[in-house]
């Protein structure tokens, strides 16, 4: 009995360890690379601590278009997150609470758009944006990313609003709220968990998006970090050190956002609202 328990534990811990190693090893290597010299990195040896720890790569990076690209990423991502949350939550509310013609077809259509592979869309998109003279602009990326995250956001938020009791809003309306006020005072706090999750989701999708950014941007007017990192490995020859360094920096904002919103993801908030 006891042996079995110990054995179970051992196997479990071993599996967890494997998963951690598999997930973290590449990232660890990225961090190590960013503090290494190019020569040492090319020595074909795997090491944990470089002989010479250098911060030169980070300094170097700043003179290599990192700042403008990061600015593009920040502007595009924050715009997408803010706009998508506002539009998405209001749309989800309408889909959840109101009856209107074409509601279900619209809802399904929004998800259907996500089933078309981006590779099939990129050429028509390129042509359209070219005609509109919108190639190489941040607004173009913002529009495309909105179309990527909104359907998911609407679906997820709708499911959260669906399970928020209608009577809570009605109670608020009798207590003196307009529909909009009851939405802010009652519905929004009830769905904050889902909201935090979708903010993280939108942020990560947008921040890391490469394919559209690569296809539709040319210069630092709109180029985002993933494209810049790619550039380090192609345009200027394979500069692994630079791409690793930029990769480390680019990975920080999603982590920060996740930590920041984590505290809002508290389960069981809805318990006790109404008698089940």
């Amino acid at each position, binding site marked *: 009995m006891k042996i079995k328990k110990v054995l179970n534990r051992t196997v479990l811990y071993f599996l967890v360890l494997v998963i951690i190693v598999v997930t973290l090893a590449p990232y660890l290597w990225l961090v190590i690379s960013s503090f290494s010299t190019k020569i040492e990195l090319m020595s074909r040896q795997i090491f944990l601590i470089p002989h010479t720890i250098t911060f030169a790569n980070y300094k170097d990076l700043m003179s290599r278009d990192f700042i403008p690209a990061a600015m593009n990423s920040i502007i595009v991502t924050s715009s997408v997150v803010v706009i998508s949350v506002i539009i998405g939550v209001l749309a989800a509310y309408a889909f959840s609470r109101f*009856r209107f013609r074409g509601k279900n077809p619209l809802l399904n259509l929004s998800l259907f758009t996500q089933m078309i592979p981006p590779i099939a869309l990129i050429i028509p998109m390129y042509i359209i944006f070219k005609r509109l003279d919108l190639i190489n602009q941040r607004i173009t990326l913002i529009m495309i990313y909105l179309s990527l995250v909104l359907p998911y956001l609407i679906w997820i938020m709708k499911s959260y609003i669906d399970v928020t*009791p209608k*009577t*809570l809003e*009605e*109670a*608020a*309306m*009798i*207590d*003196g*709220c*307009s529909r909009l*006020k009851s939405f802010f*005072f*009652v519905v929004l*706090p*009830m769905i904050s968990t889902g909201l935090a999750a979708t903010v993280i989701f939108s942020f990560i999708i947008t921040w890391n998006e490469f394919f559209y950014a690569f296809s539709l941007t040319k210069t630092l007017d709109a180029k985002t970090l993933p494209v810049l990192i790619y550039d380090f490995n192609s345009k200027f020859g394979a500069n692994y050190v630079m791409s690793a360094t930029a990769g480390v920096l680019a990975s920080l904002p999603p982590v920060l956002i996740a930590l920041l919103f984590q505290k809002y993801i508290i389960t*069981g*908030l*809805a*318990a*006790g*609202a*109404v*008698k089940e």
Partner: protein
Amino acid sequence: MASIQLEHVTKQYPGGVTAVDDFNLSIEDREFIILVGPSGCGKSTVLRMIAGLEEITSGEIFIGDRLVNEVAPKDRDIAMVFQNYALYPHMTVYKNMAFSLKLRKTPKAEIDEKVRAAAKILDIEALLDRKPRALSGGQRQRVALGRAMVRNPSAFLLDEPLSNLDAKLRTSMRAEITKLHQQLGTTFVYVTHDQTEAMTMGDRIAVIKDGVIQQIDTPQNLYDHPANLFVGGFIGSPQMNLIDATVKKVADRFFATFGETDVLIPPQVMGADVAASYEGKSIVIGIRPEFISEGGPHSDCDTTIAGDIDLAESMGAEKFIYFVCEGYPCIAKVPGKSGIQTGDHVSLTIDCSKMHIFDKESGLAISH
């Protein structure tokens, strides 16, 4: 403090369900009125239309002198207690109760005073800092009442507020809500499917079936003079015994006949001229269980029947006797000390002067 008037109010839900049909109801200021009826009869819909949560298909609703058809819920000056309480889960009890006052920009000190006063009346002062999820059902119920009270609204709307409580708590809350009504001196509109709640709490009761008002009257009058079969069967517990019969004239007296049994129709129940017009026709007689007693006839108004007792159910102070009379399952309510046992064959006596008679076809009462 306000009267409430419903004039020809009809509600048709999208999809075609007519939940409320040509509703006319005049609720007086400070009255405690009860809307009672079986589940799905449209009680909640009526209440929600008064609250403004549901649009009115046709008709007019007045609160005080004001036509409120197009008035938003927040501007109707009413408070509502929901069946599922609908407390804001992310707010403490205090904030739940203070919410409506805060929205009205009431000064902080005044809010505090009102919330604490209401909490004191409802005996929930110790719970003010808790979130709803940390409360029992009965406590949540009190908070819901408190949230309605603080605003001092002109009318209280309560939708089955006790149906989620256990039986004992329900009985004590019943008394407390009645007391609260007297204390507040406000109009109460109270919805329930429970006839006991209706009978014990209301000044007047509106009995509803399929979206139509069957009868509006005081509890005593509903009990004494049900207007139709439905009200007769709905009000009173255990249920009134209803038996199909035919009117028969023997000598100059009228009888309700079913099977081998003849039950006298005394003139004070139905006048000779009315009875004569029903001679040979189908009627339904209604006899409340409390008017069937043990033993032989006690007066010349009584009719004695014999029955095999299927079940004698002792409730302590009284006993419910289940028996079959001419194929109709019947219940009698006798004193608890009665010796009747399951399986006994006994004679029982119907007090015919307390009998109700209904037209079989229309279901309307034709007795006095």
